[in-house]
């Protein structure tokens, strides 16, 4: 099972955190500090896996962003590496060639996407298309709601003129 997902920038800034196992706020800060210390300093040729407190942390660097996932000892690291890549591909498709800025300013969107990919620490859906469709459905609902809201406010505005 995946215990948490972290996105850290090369400068050690946190871009996204998702915790599937209970960690207190204090522990979270500590985990992030510890892991960014370990991962950011690793050379490019080394394994993408790190031993950490009896867990495994699988990380992968995309441009200036590190995607990290913490898993159990008996999980398949290579698979998790691909789950990360899967996530990135979905982000890419959604944002249209994603960049770190997209994730900084729209981190809540990234959370919504992550929620469709992983649930309760397990891979929930491995089809990009299905995920894209669900997110699109949510977004379109949001859009219509916005339109309605604005038309109502227009009506009100006109009525109160």
């Amino acid at each position, binding site marked *: 099972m995946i215990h948490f997902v972290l996105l850290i920038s090369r400068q050690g800034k946190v871009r996204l955190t998702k915790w599937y196992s209970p960690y207190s706020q204090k522990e979270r800060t500590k985990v992030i500090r510890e892991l960014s210390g370990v991962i950011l300093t690793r050379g490019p040729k080394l394994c993408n896996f790190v031993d950490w407190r009896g867990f495994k942390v699988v990380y992968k660097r995309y441009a200036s962003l590190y995607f990290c996932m913490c898993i159990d000892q008996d999980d398949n690291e290579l698979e998790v590496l691909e789950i990360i890549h899967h996530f990135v591909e979905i982000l890419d498709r959604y944002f249209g*060639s994603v960049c770190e800025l997209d994730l900084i300013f729209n981190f809540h969107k990234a959370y919504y996407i992550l929620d469709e990919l992983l649930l309760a620490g397990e891979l929930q859906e491995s089809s990009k298309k299905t995920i894209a469709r669900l997110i699109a459905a949510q977004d379109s609902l949001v859009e219509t709601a916005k339109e309605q809201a604005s038309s109502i406010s227009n009506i009100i505005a006109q009525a109160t003129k």
Partner: protein
Amino acid sequence: MGSQGGFYQSKEFLDLVKSIGEARSKAEEDRIVLGEIETLKRRISDPDIPKRKMKEYIIRLVYVEMLGHDASFGYIHAVKMTHDDSLLVKRTGYLAVTLFLNEDHDLIILIVNTIQKDLKSDNYLVVCTALNAVCKLINEETIPAVLPLVVELLAHPKEAVRKKAIMALHRFYQKSPSSVSHLVSNFRKRLCDNDPGVMGATLCPLFELITIDVNSYKDLVMSFVSILKQVTERRLPKAYDYHQMPAPFIQIKLLKILALLGSGDKQASENMYTVVGDIFRKCDSSSNIGNAVLYECICCVSSIYPNPKLLESAADAISRFLKSDSHNLKYMGIDALGRLIKISPEIAEQHQLAVIDCLEDPDDTLKRKTFELLYKMTKSTNVEVIVDRMIDYMISINDNHYKTEIASRCVELAEQFAPSNQWFIQTMNKVFAHAGDLVNTKVAHNLMRLIAEGFGEEDDTADSQLRSSAVESYLHILGEPKLPSVFLQVICWVLGEYGTADGRYSASYITGKLCDVAEAYSDDETVKAYAVTALMKIYAIEIAAGRKVDMLPECQALMEEFLASHSTDLQQRAYELQAVIGLDAHAVESIMPSDASCEDIEVDKALSFLNGYIQDSIEKGAQPYIPESERSGMLNISNFRNQDHHEASSHGLRFEAYELPNQTVQSRIPPASLASTELVPVPEPMYVRESYQTTIVPSASSDAGSTELKLRLDGVQKKWGRQTHSSATSTSSSTSQKTVNGITQVDGSNTSNSRTRETYDSRKQHVEVTPEKQKLAASLFGGSSKSEKKPATGHKIPKPSSHVVEKSHARKSSMEIASEKKASFQQPPDLLDFGEPTVKSAAPSVDPFKELEGLLEPTTQVASDENHGSTTAAAKSPDIMGLYTETHAGIYDKDDSDILSGLSNPPVTNMFGGTTSMQVAQSSKGPNLKDALEKDALVRQMGVTPSSPNPNLFKDLFG
């Protein structure tokens, strides 16, 4: 870029993010965030902020919390937001609460009602959002509130909802298996869901259930095999392809499940051979995901009943991994090797040099993995080389967690395979000296026990040699400064027991050393206590031998100090020492017999020696003792008293352990047995004794008066004290005891080595040069052809000792050539370097906002096929969606019971004779199926996968 989702954010928020990005130090960032928190606090409590504004505030709260600051003041607003009617507001609320709250948070109770309502919503998106929250927030107590609703959703027409409902049930199962145990059949049912996503999600809970209880799921073997076969034949919709592999994530999950089901089951395994062999052949070992599947195949092959052909394929795959340049693949290869050598030990030999390269690698992760492999292949011929290497590595690292692990592994291997006592003692000394404070105290107790009991062979001289060499090395080590406390305890204990045993050292020499220890580590009370007790033993041996005892002056000074010590324990020991010295030889001999640490101590649990006293009291009119279980209506009181006397026994830890069980168990089990079952498993001696002491109380005291109880308890406590090694001077217990290791069993326990005594002179090579490397290889692997007892079986020797080093059975590794390559030409400049400019890679980037674009580039190149698929998908998406829902609706109506029965009793012929069964299905199901079937046939001819879900996919299972 960024515009797509950027519609709600105000300039204020953008500015905040920007300024944090530009912050040059953590302090500056903190200052900005604290300012933001103040602003939010002020605004958020404003009663009439528009919803849209509120939504943004909540997202800002999430941001603040993500940066590690406390945003708890706003949690309640996030909770309120989940109540909102509009989905977009609600969604933000749910997102925030799932990020903010852990499952034990008080506010959760306020959300349960909303969740209940939302689960019933007719908008499936609302339901999905609520289910996401359910997975994170619902705890054991609140499961019943939503459980029926979630179960209902398993039959929801939308597959996204069914999938999430499955995951939610799985989560419930993890949190409280009993709450959903009656619903487990639902997982089986959902396995034949016609949506591959739902089926894939179902594999998660099934995997967990099968891990726990393999046998109840043996009937599913054929179903899993058939699903896996269909997946590998590309019969899933193309959307599930990933880098040209058909649904690899589902394949991996299935292989994991098959590995469990086939373990030790020849019949089940035979059904799997074909499909696993197919995967071996079909896997594309040039892609990362292909290797992930290959690795899972190896794991599966090494777990199921062995098949020579598959083992060969696995060995081939492993050697490809090990020969790869990628560290990830090497890591994976080492892990896989560790799994396979259990079955075919000879395969290690051909990879000796690769393994040694990994051992020498600067990459810590790889190195550790290799140590894990070595640990698995240790035997008495190579134990010296391996343990030496491990200790060297242990000394070189700072990671305490791993240091602890590797230290306990060293100890375990040394105990099991030590070629000589000398070596064993030296190894233990090294481990303790460098990781003494990290190793479990059990390890120390184990070492003491081992020295006391010897290696268990009848050979007494070997045991005494072991002891003398221990004493000698300890005396030597005592000269070093700053030894870990645990190690000192062992040293004191051994010196006390055996310091003078072989007559080489005089009592005054040993006592002098012990006094030095007590003085040098004067702030460590445990060590001092061990030292005093050791002193007492030395003197007792002297007295018993009829020699005259002269206390050294420094020893006397020490005793003076301890007699007035603040620690009652130390005081007690000092007084006991004083008392022992005053006794004559006979008395000393019976209270402290020499070398009796392994003798059993008989404890009269019923305290029959008090019978007379009880009789007297009853005759004098005292009330007879009523066992707690028979006292009606006094539960609370007895409970209270129970706690009370645990407090009296001065052990805070015990107090907690008692509280709960007492109330429930009381009625069934008499307190005496309760107490002892509870406590005895704890290996440390002090607990064992305490358990005796607590059991005494209820059964012995004849009157119910609690003062009486307490009085007696005090007496007992004084006699036996709480510390491990205080000897009992009590007269009440008939068997007098000497420092006992607490573990009373005398037999067993021993490791298997004293017989193998090959001296291996190949110990200290460094593997810089090739010949040396080869030598090392020879010393590591050379013995493997000799018919030695395999390490795997060696580990299984049941040891009575409680020291169990978990053999975490390794895991896996991974790597990808493709992504590695990618990384090299990727690395576009870092856009977000708000701070100082960092070293940029040379890749020219026209549009800086496209910095992550490189990510997908490989996909385009390598997987043009897939990209192609995606573009067409985008173009025709309405079409495909339509198709999807159509087929879906067609099948959904199918009778559930039908599915179930089919699943539990899958016709074996179906999976191979799929066509015939499909034809049957077709005739009964009309044109829809026929179309699909034709398409399927066409597809198989052309070797392409259909892009719409294939309705026949899981039909094969049940015809």
